[in-house]
């Protein structure tokens, strides 16, 4: 890739200069695409409702309506639930990545980008960065609404930030799977159905909102190996919140932080190149 961009100019400023210029160009392209997607959000703030209103709604619903009936050993439901609510909201919000990409492909805008001398993957990377930023906003809202309903942590600043970072990193890698879905869906609507068919079960069949100990055996096994469980348990561990999963023998529940990181890296390593392949395939005719 880099060599082909270097080839046309044999003489000149030397390879390091060219290379850093190429990198700077790519960074600029990604930043341009990121900003474009952020402007979109500012134009249609209702698009953001799944990361602004939904977290508040979920927090209130789960803590006040369902939480009372779910006993948490050694702690309160709000203390237990926050990590799960964070995971639930962020995981389901990746639907936005699928819908956004599908919308871009559906209109003619991608043709415009493809005829520009830009680094083409910036279309995908810019989208993922913009969605990461909205995820950060979502995390903030979850944290604030959690504090309002009684969530507390004694952990140090580093561990608290680490817990949020763990969930955000996982969300970021998941958004690349969402990108693959968006790139393969026929319409924005069908991309949206991905959320209900895949993301909601993924988020709910986990320890995010209830301890898995009460699930039927086979379902518990699924839940304990569900990456979302590792992510939620990892955040609980870092925040010093009640984490009933620690009593479960499955490896990810014994090492939730490591498991969450491994899942995230693994997903990213597979989904990102795959998304870039799908993008090329979808836009080649």
């Amino acid at each position, binding site marked *: 890739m880099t060599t*082909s*961009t270097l080839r*046309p100019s044999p003489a000149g400023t030397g390879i390091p200069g060219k290379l850093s210029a190429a990198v700077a*160009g790519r960074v*600029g*392209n990604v930043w*341009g*695409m990121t900003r*474009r997607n952020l*402007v*979109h959000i500012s*134009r*249609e703030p209702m698009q953001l409702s799944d990361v602004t209103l939904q977290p508040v709604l979920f927090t209130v619903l789960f803590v006040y309506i369902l939480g009372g009936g779910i006993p948490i050993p050694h702690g309160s439901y709000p203390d237990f639930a926050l990590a799960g609510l964070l995971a639930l909201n962020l995981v389901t919000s990746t639907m936005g990545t699928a819908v956004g990409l599908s919308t871009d492909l559906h*209109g*003619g*805008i991608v*043709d*415009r*980008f*493809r*005829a*520009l*001398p*830009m680094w083409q993957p*910036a279309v995908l990377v810019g989208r993922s960065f913009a969605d990461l930023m909205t995820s950060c906003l979502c995390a903030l809202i979850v944290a604030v609404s959690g504090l309002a309903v009684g969530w507390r942590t004694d952990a140090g600043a580093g561990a608290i930030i680490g817990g949020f970072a763990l969930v955000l990193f996982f969300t970021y890698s998941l958004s690349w799977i969402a990108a693959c879905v968006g790139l393969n869906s026929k319409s924005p609507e069908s991309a949206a159905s991905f959320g209900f068919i895949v993301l909601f079960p993924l988020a709910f069949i986990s320890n995010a909102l209830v301890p898995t100990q009460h699930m039927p055996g086979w379902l518990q096994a699924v839940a304990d190996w569900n990456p979302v469980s590792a992510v939620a348990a990892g955040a609980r561990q870092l925040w010093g919140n009640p984490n009933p999963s620690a009593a479960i023998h499955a490896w990810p529940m014994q090492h939730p932080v490591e498991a969450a990181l491994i899942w995230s890296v693994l997903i990213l390593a597979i989904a990102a190149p795959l998304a870039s392949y799908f993008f090329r395939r979808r836009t*080649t*005719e």
Partner: protein
Amino acid sequence: MPNDMMIEAEELAKRYGETRALAGVDFAVPGGSILGLLGPNGAGKTTAVRILTTLALPDAGRARVAGVDVVGHPAEVRRHIGVAAQDATLDGLLSGRQNLVLVGELSDMGRRASRQRATELLAQFELTDASDRVLKGYSGGMRRRLDLAAALMTRPPVLFLDEPTTGLDPVSRQRVWEAVRELTAAGVTVLLTTQYLDEADALADQIVVIDHGRVIANGTPQELKEASRSARLEVTLTAPYPGAVEATVAVEATVAAEAIGSLTTGPVHISEDGRRLSAGVDSAPGLATSVVRALDAAGVLVDNIEIRQPSLDDVFFSLTGGHLAPEDDQPGSGAAGPEGARPEMEGAGT
């Protein structure tokens, strides 16, 4: 091919599933000139543009833009081109200015230069007042103008305009035409596709007519008009005396038609009131004199004789067999040949 050709297509072929969009298309555009790619809907114009702008890969053939192979070095080609595509490829949620700046930034122009250029183009296309409005509120004409402005952001030496004035009101159309003329005056090479013959006639230095994915004519507007030599002869007979029976008028018209029959290339069409005759003729020296003599010999009184040189419309219709949408005719039969057996489409019309 000499190097001063800025756009070259050689034997370009492209198939979409069962549809053969291009079946071996050749043309070349010298630097600083305008090529009009003319053809009915579905003829393959957009496919040709998509290949030349690196958006589609040809199944066969070669294409070069600014001397660079579009398949081998698409990224390099993109540095030399500006594209205004048919369906609005702008971002509906950004403002006009943001759209232009985005295009500039993604073309590595830098923020400051992009902003400056955007302001310049917005003024040039009279969009300054609307520049900070979201694109959704733009009219069709404003969008097209912004599309063109976006294509010009990087001052590309080669410009592709896919039906740039489709759906525009006459004033906006004129503005786009002026802009295109100014560009070529500054040395820019333009390929524009159009369904409007007057547009090709007004702008293009060279016209390529394609139909069913094949080039069926190629030349300057003048050459094309001359190539299709069929001028149109229209004769207005003198009004019959008051009270003349219809049958008398009809007989007179028939006599006149027979008189000029040997000079025309097809059947002579008689208008309903029996007063006007029209037919295709080959523009030969002394044609008008021959017509007058023939009519005089037959004793027919004539008010007016008109020999109309072919418009580009006539050429186009005779080349494409008079259809505007693909139909089941054999493709490209009789390239640049004379018109066939259907000369009478709208008899006495202009």
